[in-house]
């Protein structure tokens, strides 16, 4: 990355063209796009800039520093785990610990209401994002098959697939016997050396298997080794350890400055435009605290989480599930299963797992303790899993609100309520049956399932109707002339694909649409 002393810096009293709040998959791509167009831009990041080769340990407990640890309150019928499950802090945001699993959503994912009469259509479609998927795969260095078997035609992935680990081999054999088509997964970790503009050479993945707790080698395309250094090379400033608490607005409702608590106390960065990219929890939380951009009443509503039921089994073979990228193999044969009793669909993926993560699931999901737990964990090296990534429908009551309880900064903690609906439950049962069948074929014993929901989606949805949505199809807030929101909060539906690639595509599109219309709409 470019030396910090060379980074262009602004004073808070300079009116910069744009402030970007957050440097994850939503903020970093547009930060680099705007900087490349010559705009003066400042990113405010709550966390620090890590030096992964020096700072990242291959140790799950030590790497808790990558997670957002300000407490979130979890309620509803199926309360979600936060922290390790789905939050991030530091330059790069949650891409520091994403699996870098980068399947594209399919065109029909964007039209779930048209197809099934439930959920919500997106105001944009696959074709609007396809050029950005092409660009991202070529820029990040995605490893994957030459010809991907599902979805529309697309360019070959630029790098060969990563090798299959034990769980992927087991799933591949079982699926072949069951007549389910599989493919090595598209993954934004490198199978070969890769030159990253603005950053330098990134070396190939060493199969350390620690994607979900931080990549120490730079093989994984997190934002801190891709878009952020490119942005800085183009003149962007990344200001770390700056937690945004509010906004200054003029009588007309325009934002004139962003209020944040930095290393030297509270300050205000003056700006012409704000891009709020803090994720589906912190973005709506900040808007609810600030008390604007919500004439629709939709801020905080339509919270969704992907169906993610896992099936684990124990095998005679030694699996050593900590090696290799966790999700080596994919199938999208279940995208629209013919015997489905639910709307939407899901993808299947093999899963390896780190020991603490697995022990935690055994404790919470299976309730094992005492000698029984220790005995089960002594078989850790023989464990392999499959899970799904399934669509989720928005539902009344699944939402984010402000709790009465305050955090250490004196701000209300977020309360997220989530209850899986009938659709999610039927999808999970359908998937569990298939996965248990596969593990039976593969020769597993002691098979068990862990019902879980992953990712935070919705809460500031996009749409064409200002009464039903917070932002328009260009991710611009209906109520505030110079505010855009770009992260997983704007998703009107969850999509049956891991969200990071789509968030990045939206981020680039948001920047391009902003640049195309700049000076014309305000």
């Amino acid at each position, binding site marked *: 990355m470019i030396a910090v002393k060379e980074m262009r810096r602004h004073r808070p009293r300079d009116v910069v063209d744009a402030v970007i709040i957050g440097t994850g998959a939503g903020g970093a791509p547009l930060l680099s796009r705007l900087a490349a167009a010559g705009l003066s831009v400042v990113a405010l990041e709550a966390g620090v800039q890590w030096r992964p080769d*020096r700072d990242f340990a291959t140790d799950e407990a030590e790497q808790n520093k990558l997670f957002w640890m300000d407490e979130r309150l979890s*309620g509803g019928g199926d309360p979600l785990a936060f922290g390790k499950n789905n939050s991030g802090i530091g330059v790069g945001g949650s891409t520091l610990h994403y699996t870098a699993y980068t399947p594209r959503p399919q065109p029909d994912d964007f039209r779930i209401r048209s197809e099934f009469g439930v959920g919500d259509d997106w105001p944009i479609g696959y074709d609007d994002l396809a050029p950005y998927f092409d660009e991202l795969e070529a820029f990040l260095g995605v490893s994957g098959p030459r010809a991907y078997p599902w979805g529309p035609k697309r360019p070959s992935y630029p790098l060969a697939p990563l090798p299959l680990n034990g769980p992927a081999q087991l799933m591949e054999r079982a699926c072949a016997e069951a007549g389910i088509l599989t493919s090595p997964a598209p993954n934004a970790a490198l199978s070969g050396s890769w030159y990253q503009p603005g950053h330098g050479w990134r070396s190939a993945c060493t199969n*350390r298997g620690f994607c979900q707790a931080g990549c120490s080698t730079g093989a994984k395309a997190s934002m801190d080794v891709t878009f952020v250094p490119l942005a800085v090379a183009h003149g962007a400033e990344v200001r770390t350890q700056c937690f945004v608490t509010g906004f200054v607005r003029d009588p007309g409702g325009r934002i004139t400055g962003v209020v944040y608590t930095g290393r030297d106390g509270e300050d205000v960065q003056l700006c012409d435009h704000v891009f709020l990219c803090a994720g589906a929890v912190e973005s709506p939380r900040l808007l609810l605290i600030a008390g604007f951009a919500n004439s629709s009443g939709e801020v905080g509503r339509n919270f969704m989480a992907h169906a993610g039921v896992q099936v684990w089994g124990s095998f005679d073979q*030694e699996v050593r599930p900590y090696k290799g990228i966790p999700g080596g193999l994919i199938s999208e044969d279940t995208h629209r299963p013919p015997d489905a009793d639910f709307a939407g669909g899901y993808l299947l993926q093999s899963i390896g797992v780190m020991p*603490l993560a697995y022990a935690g699931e055994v404790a919470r999901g299976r309730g094992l*303790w005492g000698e029984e737990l220790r*005995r089960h964990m002594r078989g850790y090296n*023989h464990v392999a899993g499959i899970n799904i990534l399934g669509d989720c429908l928005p539902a009344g009551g699944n939402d984010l609100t402000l709790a009465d309880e305050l955090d250490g900064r004196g701000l209300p903690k977020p309360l997220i309520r989530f209850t899986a609906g009938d659709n999610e439950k039927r999808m999970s049962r359908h998937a569990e049956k298939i996965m248990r069948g596969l593990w039976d074929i593969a020769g597993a014993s002691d098979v068990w399932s862990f019902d879980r929901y992953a990712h935070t989606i919705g809460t500031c949805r996009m749409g064409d109707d200002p009464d039903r949505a917070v932002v328009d199809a260009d991710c611009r807030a209906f109520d505030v002339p110079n505010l855009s929101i770009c992260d997983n909060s704007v998703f009107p539906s969850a999509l049956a694909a891991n969200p990071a690639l789509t968030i990045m595509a939206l981020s680039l599109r948001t920047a391009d649409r902003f640049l195309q219309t700049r000076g014309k709409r305000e």
Partner: protein
Amino acid sequence: MNLMPDRAYPVGTVRSLLASDRVTPATADALRRRLLRARAPDGEVFDAEAYRTLEAVCARLIPQPDRDPPIDVAAELHTRLADGIGDGWRYVDLPPDRIAYVRGIVGIDQTSAALFGEPFIALAGANRDTVLRALQAGVADGETWQLMKSDCFFEELLAQVVDIYYAHPLAQEEIGYAGMADARGWQAIGLDARDAHEPAPLGTSR
């Protein structure tokens, strides 16, 4: 349940790895810190009697008759509570962690008294397990559990105890985990494959 072959590493495997060039400095530092004995509790969260009960509970959740000294799970749990180190979320049905744990220990004694007429610490092992199973099933008697769901509290407590135990390098040695040998990464990642620089489990040869 199916008993898998034990893949434990011989005693001393992790310590010898840490002394080698097979572990990166960042990883070795983290593991060495955890090999040191946990900070002794200072009475900040629990009084002495409540702390003894917590220790007894931890010893049922993760029994360590084979270890001398055992991994001090209760002391580390106390440190996390005293320092306010959470995991980024909690069930809205539970109060903040410190309050939940202090109340939870009181509640465990209430359940013990209701079932056996004695505090938890006075019970034999099997009866201690009966108390903990009642908590886990959400059917524990006791005034505390009218205000705080015992199954929620039990899940939280168990998750913390398990997280602390398996974060310890010696517990990772017990399950044959070699991920800390991270300096070179892995080439042999498929089924029944082992890299040349990977330790050999007990009862196997190179």
